[in-house]
């Protein structure tokens, strides 16, 4: 379940990044942007569900005590706590951006102002996704120590 959570999350972040890249081009491909934002939305929701399952049923009893007793107890209080809550809002952003590409796609490609706005939002989602991913890496490191 944890592996599924991580892989789905990585696909989600890749989707945001790819959408930003495509929207940064002078001539953007609407099918490509739509596909990447759809992939991001599906993957982030999948990561949300698998991560939630792991967190609610397993992390609290089996992993959190290990981290808290390790040399890095702050890994839980900072990175787990922050990550688990920031991650809660990624699906809404993913769905909103996909909705823009789906309902207002042609306008998004044609209208420079709108295209830059969606590109910026995809970039912001990428940054947040990378930060959440790195937080997960830190948590894993704390478990191993």
């Amino acid at each position: 379940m944890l592996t599924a959570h991580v892989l789905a999350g990585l696909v989600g972040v890749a989707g945001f990044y790819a959408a930003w890249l495509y929207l940064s081009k002078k001539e953007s491909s609407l099918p490509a942007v739509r596909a990447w934002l759809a992939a991001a939305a599906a993957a982030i929701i999948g990561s949300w569900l698998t991560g939630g399952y792991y967190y609610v049923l397993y992390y609290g009893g089996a992993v959190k005590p290990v981290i808290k007793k390790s040399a890095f107890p702050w890994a839980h209080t900072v990175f787990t706590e922050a990550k688990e809550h920031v991650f809660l809002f990624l699906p809404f952003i993913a769905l909103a951006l996909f909705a823009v590409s789906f309902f207002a796609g042609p306008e998004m490609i044609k209208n420079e102002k709108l295209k830059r706005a969606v590109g910026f939002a995809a970039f912001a989602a990428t940054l947040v996704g990378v930060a959440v991913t790195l937080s997960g890496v830190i948590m894993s490191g704390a478990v191993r120590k």
Partner: protein
Amino acid sequence: MTNLNIKKAQNLVVGASAAVLVVTALTIVGELAPPLKDFLKATFSHHWIGKGAVGALVFVVVAAVDAIIPVEGNSDSLALDIYILAWVTLASFLAIYGFFIFETFAKP
């Protein structure tokens, strides 16, 4: 491109901004006021599930209310709403990480 389609996109963008803000508020207030966290745990079996459920509800309700408001969608206002969503996301991300860093390292 019909304004109706732009309006649909706008509804969901506005809903997403509201959901992000509510999740951030629930997160920080929940840590400062344990009864709120306890309420979410008692109602939803886990505080994290509760925050997600409330966030989802806010997303749907705000999008629906925005859809009812008789204002036509247009590209300029959609672009503004998307920028707001992006900045709300970044600010909320900083607020949550900042809060937990403060709680862990700086709180007296």
